[in-house]
């Protein structure tokens, strides 16, 4: 089995988010880490490798220093790393990013593509599903469990209060949640090997079936006007009532909040 895992080097938001005066992220002032959802996706791929045997390729789009995150993935147990970097790819939004990654992945053989649900620096959750659209393969998002059965993947897709079990024929794409697993540590020996490993570097010329108009800042329909720290979603409220009472309760709440 061949698994491709898309990972992203992101600023570590644990110590707080720092912004430039123009409202964009001050990336230089923040430490970088592997995006947590992507790390869970990588761990899921490595567990499938442990269990079924697989070749795990990690791919990232970013600045040349994003190579570090590929080496970290190799130190955890990934087999190969591919860095997609080119000036013309800079300033990409989710559309241009997914076009770029899909263009790169078209060079690879794969049964399964795993991406993180979303990156902590953008929180869009769009790139994974968009890649699947570009590649014309099924997507199962928000995976909290991934299993392989024959030529299919069986995924538990998480919702706020339940999960769905979905089965899809491979090749397909799965987006992983950080809660999916506890990612393993790198090993010291893995680090030494990773530092010696050759990282494949691809530029614009290596992207297959992608128009220039879909790449980089020029190919990005969305522009960031202003970024701000995330406001956490509340835990919500759960009530146990029969159907009629539930309707009354919801109507009451909506009136209370002047929604209706």
């Amino acid at each position: 089995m061949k698994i491709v895992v898309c990972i992203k080097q992101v600023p570590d938001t644990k110590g707080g988010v720092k912004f430039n005066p123009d409202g964009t992220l001050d990336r230089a002032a923040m430490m970088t880490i592997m995006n947590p959802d992507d790390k869970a996706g990588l761990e899921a791929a490595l567990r499938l490798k442990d269990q079924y045997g697989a070749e795990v390729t990690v791919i990232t789009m970013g600045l040349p220093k994003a190579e570090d995150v590929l080496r970290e993935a190799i130190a955890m147990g990934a087999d190969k790393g591919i860095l997609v970097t080119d000036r013309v790819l800079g300033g990409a939004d989710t559309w241009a990013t997914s076009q770029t990654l899909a263009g790169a992945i078209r060079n690879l053989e794969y049964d399964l593509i795993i991406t993180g649900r979303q990156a902590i620096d953008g929180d869009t959750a769009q790139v994974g599903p968009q890649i699947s659209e570009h590649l014309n393969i099924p997507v199962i998002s928000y995976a909290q469990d991934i299993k392989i059965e024959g030529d299919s993947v069986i995924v538990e897709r998480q919702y706020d209060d339940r999960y769905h079990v979905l089965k899809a024929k491979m090749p397909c794409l799965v987006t992983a949640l950080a809660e999916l697993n506890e990612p393993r540590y790198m090993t010291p020996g893995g680090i030494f090997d990773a530092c010696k490993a050759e990282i494949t570097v691809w530029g614009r010329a290596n992207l297959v079936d992608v128009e220039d108009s879909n790449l980089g800042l020029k190919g990005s329909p969305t522009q960031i006007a202003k970024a701000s720290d995330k406001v956490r979603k509340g835990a919500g409220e759960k009530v146990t009532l029969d159907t009629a009472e539930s309707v009354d309760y919801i109507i009451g709440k909506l009136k209370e909040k002047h929604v209706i």
Partner: protein
Amino acid sequence: MDFTLKKEHEMARTLFREFAEKEVKPLAIEVDETEEFPRATVEKMAKAGFMGIPIPKEYGGQGCDILTYAICVEELSKVCGTTGVIVSAHTSLCCDPILTFGTEEQKQKYLPDLASGKKIGAFGLTEPGAGTDAQGQQTKAVLDGDEWVINGSKIFITNGKEADVYVIFAVTGMVEKRGKMIKEISAFIVEKGTPGFTFGTKEKKMGIRGSSTYELIFTDCRIPKENMLGQQGKGFGIAMHTLDGGRIGIAAQALGIGEGALERTIEYVKERKQFGRAIGAFQNTQFQLADMATKAQAAQFMVYKAACTKDQYTKDHKTSYNVEAAMAKLYAAEMAMEVTTKAVQLHGGYGYTREYEVERMMRDAKITEIYEGTSEVQRMVISAALLK
């Protein structure tokens, strides 16, 4: 001369620091209070490959260098001196002599389980009457057919009851040296569970209280003849060579304890207010911190230099590292004691309570001036090299 670490060492530090913060730090106070060996942490370290860092891959290790191992012990010791010494004693005092002096069969038999952390290693040299004076050894080994029969006891053994494989030293005869009859000392590998090998008292210690420090007792303990480590009569040299390497581990432990106390103190002086200001705003505090940081930095350079020198020895089997190791241990241990004492002072009354970690760190620091050669022994080693 380049003082920057290579990429692999920086990445390894990130790994060790993350592990220490996440897995070790939350348990440090409990380990000290309960004096219980942190078995679960050791299992996690084993899984992460920390128990075989400088062991070659062919023997199941990580195939890294001594510098990486020293950084591991440093980062663990920043948050827990006990955890640091468990790795240090296991790696430097048991794995290293088997790797350096063992036969191919011994290496194949013992190193894979030690390097994977499936088994833990320990080292038994010290006796009630033989610490710094290794010639005071009373433990004897007598060859009986195909077996060595060991009688005697060893004290203050780190990883004592928790270990599975022990490198033990015993007198195997008398030899003439420069007209004097002296004890011939040999090294052996003894496995836990060997009949006649039991444990005595558990030491109640001032610091590193979670490390398992026990007396080992050998009563007609029979081990196979092939478990002699190195040649008969070469035990003293094996012990000294092993301790030269061990001192790098203890120097790294001392370094970590000092750095850990400095980190805690920097956090504390920013928050603690007296006379309406954070105490970090007072020049006395600033100067104390400056001295602490300068000495910790100097110690780090010395520890890394010693580690790199031993790495050179690993490559050429010629480069001597005993003086570098002795200097690193001497300086780092005295730095740790000084820095932790100042850290407690800067914490004031709170620093004297167990609620604040600097109290434990000061107790943990003291042993680094004593074990694997006291500071006085390090001065002997250094001055002997100067005057030879």
